[in-house]
């Protein structure tokens, strides 16, 4: 998915069995993640695509380890 003139993009997803709704993802990448006000869980908004480097940062920042790169999208 890498373009010649842009950063490599990956798609991310949230493991709903693991997420505890801390919200670090939403803080770092508000265009990609949101913690649902009703069920308190992180969800991906839209395509879930972002630059690989930023995906790595948000995966690292998630305390529960609930975020991963979606298989088959890289």
């Amino acid at each position, binding site marked *: 998915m890498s373009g010649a003139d842009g950063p490599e993009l990956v798609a991310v997803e949230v493991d709903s*069995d*693991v997420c*505890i709704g801390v*919200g670090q993802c939403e803080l770092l990448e508000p265009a990609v993640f949101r*913690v649902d*006000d009703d069920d*308190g*869980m992180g969800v991906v908004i839209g395509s879930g695509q972002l630059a690989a480097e930023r995906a790595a940062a948000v995966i690292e920042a998630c*305390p*529960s380890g609930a975020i991963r790169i979606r298989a088959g999208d890289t």
Partner: protein
Amino acid sequence: MTRSRPPAPVDLNDAGVFGDGIPHDAFAVMRAADGLSWTEADDRVGAGFWSVTRHRDVLTVSRDPDTYSSAVGHIQIYDIDPDALDARASMIDLDPPVHTRLRRLVSAAFTPRRVQGYRAGIRRRVRRALDELERNGSGDWVSTVAAPIPIGVICDLMGVPEDDHGYLIELSDHLVAGTANEPLEPTAYGNTTDLRLLPFNSPAAHAMASYALDLADRRRLEPTDDLVSALTAAEIDGERLTDDEVANFFRLMIFAGNETTRSAMAHLPLQLQQFPEVLAALMTDRSLLGAAAEEVVRYSSPILYFRRTLTRSATLSGTELEPGDKVVMWYASANFDPAALDEPLAFRLDRSAPAGSGAGHVGFGGGGVHHCLGASLARLELVELLDEVLTRGTRFGEVGRPRYVESNFVNGIERLDVAVGR
């Protein structure tokens, strides 16, 4: 294979060991030892336990609840009976998936986005506290500033009326004192429950439960947008929470929201006195306030430890662990582990790794499912306090000698006399 058991160099069950703050030298000895250090069984705590003192090991234990359980044994060092475990259990004493379902009932109220909505209320409480201290020119920083701000904020979230905040501070204080050597009378607050069934073995836990159920009854009749209303309305798999679940939830939130941030705030004048360059740096660049809040938490390590219990065999730093073994994660050691943090005894505003990540501090826990629910709220409270101090140009004069809470579990300060001016 024989298990090597390097003995812990101090009696970790003796609150006096923590009487002057974190025993850094003892933890350095344990971090350098071969494997995990061992403390023998005794009648204060039951079975012996392993001390996890290295940063990387705290992360490993924190992130593997299938192996290192919060539910099969107590999360404090002393052992309690299975019926007491059940009676006391709140989400902090549970493992996934039950823990996860309970936590999501309240997690949305504590996200970085949502806590921004509490900023004005926090600032109001900060101003009121600093006004009072400045009016007197000097006083006890803990009772004037560090205690009322966090209890006020968490009580607002829960829906506790302002008039009752003092009562809940009193109860919360007794809970911690219950971990030390001065218990209340067993029948205090009209308690009739067997003490071993109550958190911290304290009658104050009974009083807090009674308070919670009374408040919950009122909110069932007239719900508001507070968290007690949310808990009374919440359903898990179509079932409402039981009275015990509501009461345990309430107790956990009041204790965790109050005691921890209070301890962090209580250490602030000591840290600013020891590192005077910090205020000057923040004055020049307020974008460093967030980094300062993280260092306040790391350096104070408000919760000294949590314990886990092994569900199966595992090896940690070369020590072979067996099912049922007790492991105690000393955050107060991992936060000063030179293998993970440069110059750990320095207060630095250029540490960039997020808390709980591979290289960040573990003052909010080492990541995993029990990572501090209120981390974003605590950060905001600390940032608002520091920002108001800077805005006013508050100067700290003489800072007295801290009187620490007698506990090996919380790094609390009971009293800290300070002089302030501008």
